[in-house]
């Protein structure tokens, strides 16, 4: 008898969770979809950059209020990881903090994936130092190179500019898989290796902690992380040849904060756009709302000029008509 009882308990244990899942699956229909109107339903697969993620998360959240039956989960595989899935046709929409690379375009072509890219917002890559750092008033591109490149690297701040303290520079940088690093690499490092003693992290909060922990530290990341940590950090005005410019909504939008302001993209599979109505609705909704959502305080990016969104909506409409 006891043996039977024990086996029963074992069986119950292993199936307990399963039963629970089935029960809720059934009750969910009753709780959440009490009005049985025929609403548009569908599934959209969205993946890609973690920098763009906050915008798309906000879009998905608002989108759900309008289309409650459409499932639009967002993944964070990174720009490169997202494209890898996108060019195989595994995802409908891929977020990116840099344009698609040649290699990725080639892969898409081989798999016969046609796509369209849309700009969502601007980000100003912010170079930041500690709040208590009072000697840096601005940095030129050459000085940035001295600080971040391995070759001929500056050991102390005095090596960067005369008169600055003779203290060791501590460098913090996003990980090499991130689109943010790619962009910095493109514009400042120009393909040459980053200094080896730099501390790398995929988690931007680690970088914030690192820079806010030392008076002689410097780092860079997306504008949103600077905006949320203004009490601990100071953005360094960058002199791109036309005088020092500090990153803020105005200078990023106008392109005056150059060369470190960059557009954020989302790529959509044309096939999905035509065959899956939910994908079309989602992109339309994104273009209508991305500016407002991206520039809200919770997210901290900069909206494109209004007419850019309108232009892109037109492009979207023409795509579907074809």
């Amino acid at each position: 008898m006891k043996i039977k009882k024990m086996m029963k308990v074992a069986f119950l244990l292993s199936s307990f969770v399963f039963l629970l899942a089935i029960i809720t699956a059934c009750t969910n229909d009753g709780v959440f979809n009490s009005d049985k109107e025929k609403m548009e339903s569908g599934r959209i697969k969205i993946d890609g950059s973690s920098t763009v993620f906050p915008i798309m998360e906000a879009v998905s959240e608002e989108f759900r209020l309008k289309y409650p039956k459409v499932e639009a989960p967002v993944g964070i595989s990174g720009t490169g990881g997202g494209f890898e899935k996108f060019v195989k046709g595994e995802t409908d929409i891929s977020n990116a903090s840099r344009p698609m690379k040649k290699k990725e375009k080639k892969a898409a072509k081989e798999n016969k994936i046609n796509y369209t890219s849309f700009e969502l917002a601007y980000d100003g890559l912010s170079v930041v130092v500690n709040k208590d750092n009072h000697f840096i008033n601005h940095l030129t591109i050459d000085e940035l190179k001295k600080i971040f490149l391995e070759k001929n690297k500056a050991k102390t701040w005095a090596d960067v500019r005369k008169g600055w303290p003779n203290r060791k520079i501590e460098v913090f940088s996003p990980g090499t898989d991130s689109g943010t690093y790619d962009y910095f690499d493109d514009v400042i490092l120009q393909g040459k290796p980053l200094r080896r003693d730099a501390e790398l992290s995929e988690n931007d909060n680690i970088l914030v902690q690192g820079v806010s922990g030392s008076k002689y530290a410097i780092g860079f990341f997306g504008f949103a992380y600077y905006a949320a940590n203004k009490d601990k950090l100071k953005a360094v005005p960058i002199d791109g040849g036309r005088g020092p410019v500090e990153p803020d909504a105005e200078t990023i939008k106008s392109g005056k904060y150059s060369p470190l302001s960059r557009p954020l993209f989302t790529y959509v599979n044309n096939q999905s756009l035509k065959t899956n109505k939910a994908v079309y609705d989602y992109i339309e909704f994104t273009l209508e709302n991305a500016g407002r959502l991206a520039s809200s305080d919770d997210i901290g990016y900069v909206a494109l000029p209004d007419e850019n969104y309108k232009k892109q909506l037109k492009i979207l409409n023409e795509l579907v008509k074809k």
Partner: protein
Amino acid sequence: MIHKKVKRRKAINHLAKFMFLLATLLTLSVLGILLCQIFLDGKEYVTLDFITSFPSRFYEKSGIWAAIWGTIWVMAVTIPLSFMIGVGTAIYLEEYAKKTMFATFIQMNIANLAGVPSIVFGLLGLTIFVRFMGWGQSVLSGGLTMTLVVLPIIVVAAQEAIKTVPKELKEASFAMGATKWQTTIHVVLPAALPGILTGTILAISRAIGETAPLLVIGAMAYVAFVPDGLLSAFTVLPIQIFNWTTRPQEEFHGLAAAGIIVLMIILFIMNGLAIWLRNKFQNTSRK
């Protein structure tokens, strides 16, 4: 002379005791500080709303409902599968397989697999379940990948449990004319069950906390629905927590701590269950 030696040995004895105590206290205090910190950070965020809400970009409205159900769905695939296959493998290896080169080879591989980093299983899952089988980034792919992660651990634990069943019990059963199958199901398994269950639950606890393999197969970061089937997209608790820690806003770090508290409670309950089951069945099988 002898007196001196005894004194010295006693001193060494005391020193050893002190060192081991220190090691224990060090481990416990690190754990204690960690738990305290997390509890202080997260306690004000653990509310009923937090548990029953979907994630949101506003921290006040954000919750872990989707992550909890994602975890349950993945476990609903992993637990029955890994238990059945794992115990089946252990029974085969211990009771049926002859100790040939082949069996030793399998045995060695299983022991090695138990030590393979979980991200490797994630890559395997991505290739087989997501791409080759075409199940995509779904509960099914996630659950099967997790099954791969915990299977070797369960097999090893179940084997150890079966090994401890006294030979006399089996021989008595055979002497009564029972077949191997009858002996296994009526004698060996019941006696080994406490050990098997403990091992399984500990392995499952590990699976609940795993992030890496699920990130690789493409679990989502923002999910605002409860999975409605095996092919549904999903997220799990550790991924939701990881996602919140990467946010710039402080409040989300509080939410992450709150998520960790919920995850810890679930793990504590499961470990408690493991201990309770072990004690219960150990007592009954001796009577």
